[in-house]
């Protein structure tokens, strides 16, 4: 079985995150970049499957600037067999449509039985790409899974929705997305880090995928304006002298909040 795990490098949520005030595109220099944690859980599921089924091949795939190499290599160090990195100046600031088109083309080129994504990134958080890729490639999508069972022909999972819990299934090939309910990722071992340096790491561009994205008749998302909000200011802070509960009640009542 061949599993492709979609990876995204995101600004570390432990630090301050910035947007370029001119373009509205993430300012990658303003914060530390890390592999999104949900992608690590997705990869963990693939690797655990590979541990039990040695004929499993796990490929990590990203679409990101050249600088994302270190994050993708972490996936190799954890145990993925190879990495594919789509980097092209033309896709800086790509919208969902371009992203889905480019990833779908790369997925097709690689060949696969299962594509695994995180349910939502910590930066964009749209949660929309698994379904877009599924539609583009005419595949079933099983999103937001909290439990997964996978065999050679079928993927089945428990899906948490806004209204309840459903069991869903589909014949492979399929696209799935996973939630934080899945197991935490393994740490790369020292051996894994050394081995990662010898694993295949392929950089590809849009021309390798036979994609051009400059057709102006195709609708694209455009940014109209971006505004940074002033940071929130701290207000009153008191040490409890035995009357703090009373003070909060007075604060709430005087502000018509209780």
């Amino acid at each position, binding site marked *: 079985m061949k599993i492709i795990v979609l990876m995204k490098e995101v600004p570390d949520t432990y630090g301050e995150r910035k947007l370029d005030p001119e373009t509205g595109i993430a300012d990658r220099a303003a914060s530390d970049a890390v592999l999104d944690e949900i992608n690590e859980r997705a990869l963990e599921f693939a690797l655990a499957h590979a541990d039990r089924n040695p004929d499993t091949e796990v490929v990590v795939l990203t679409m990101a600037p050249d600088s994302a190499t270190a994050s993708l290599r972490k996936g190799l160090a954890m145990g993925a067999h190879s990495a594919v990195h789509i980097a092209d100046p033309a896709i800086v600031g790509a919208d969902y449509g371009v992203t889905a088109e480019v990833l779908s083309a790369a997925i097709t080129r690689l060949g696969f039985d299962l594509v695994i994504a995180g349910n939502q990134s910590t930066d964009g958080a749209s949660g929309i790409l698994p379904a877009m890729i599924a539609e583009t490639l005419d595949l079933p*999508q099983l*999103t937001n899974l909290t439990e997964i069972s996978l065999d050679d022909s079928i993927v089945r999972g428990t899906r948490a929705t806004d209204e309840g819990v459903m069991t869903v299934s589909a014949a492979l090939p399929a696209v799935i997305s996973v939630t934080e309910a899945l197991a935490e990722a393994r740490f790369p071992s020292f051996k894994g880090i050394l081995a990662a340096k010898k694993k295949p790491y392929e950089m590809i561009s849009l021309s390798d995928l036979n994609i051009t994205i400059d057709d102006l008749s195709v609708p694209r998302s*455009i940014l109209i304006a*971006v505004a*940074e909000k002033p940071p929130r200011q701290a207000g009153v802070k008191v040490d409890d002298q035995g009357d703090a509960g009373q003070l909060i*009640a007075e604060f709430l009542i005087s502000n018509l909040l209780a």
Partner: protein
Amino acid sequence: MTDFASDSILVLVTVTNDGQLATSAAGLLAAATSVGTPIALVVATPEQAVGAAAEAARLGATTVIVVEDARVSSVLSVPIVDALCLAWDLMNPDAVLIANSIEGRDVAGRVAARRRSSLAADAVGVSRDDEGVLVHHSVYGGSYDILSATSTGSIVVTVRMGAITAHAEPQPLVIERLRHAPSNKSAATIESFTPAPAQSSRPELRGAATVVSGGRGLGSLANFALVEQLADSLGAAIGASRAAVDAGYVQQSCQVGQTGVSVSPQLYIALGISGAIQHRAGMQTAKTIVAINKDADAPIFDIADFGVVGDVFTVVPQLIEALEAKKKQ
């Protein structure tokens, strides 16, 4: 066949398992009304369609397109996507509004991919200028406001649940029935569905005016009852930090933050929550923030309008007592 207005906004209203409209419907129809002519789409089993359509009209839809399709309970997303594309072709809408729910995202992604249209995710509002529909976003935990649009054509928009609290005027029920036309696109099978246990009388976290949240500082599942008591005293929804969820004090659906629910209530009370950036990203747009934490250096105090350095187990009971005393006056 009805002629549709040139400023039609197509709204997918979600019919829940028991035939009701999801609570997101009101905000979506209010948003659509503010920028054009709101046309609702109901995709449901034949038994549920008419009731759901009547509810959509009551929430402001000037026309309700009904597609009866028994597959909605057994086939994931694709029957709804097929119906949306059918409705889309009838009116060529300026925008398609869909709730940013787990189901809504999948439908929106598929529709945008199938129609090769622009997609704007997690909108907190829509407006209109001479060029067309504008979409308002609040990103990076409310640190930035962004305005987006499409270069050409219709735009598919997922709207953050709870972000739009307005209601549109009720409209007379006008139903337009369409025969479903399956695309036969590959889809997952829904094998079974278990509805979430009936919600308590507390308000839903998304869109609640007041939220009381508890963190690791509560210390145990039993102690988390303190959060519930204060919430009930204030008529508030219950939230939690990721640490409290991971510790098993409360179910995951209560998680507020980067990887949980984003809330913008009038009042947010943080009990025993340190205020890690991931948590702040989900609540810092609250109008007023009150925090109680025994650690004077907790980052939550940097954004709190009223902070108390103290023990939640002494401060909160006193607060509840004072609030109850006020109610009796």
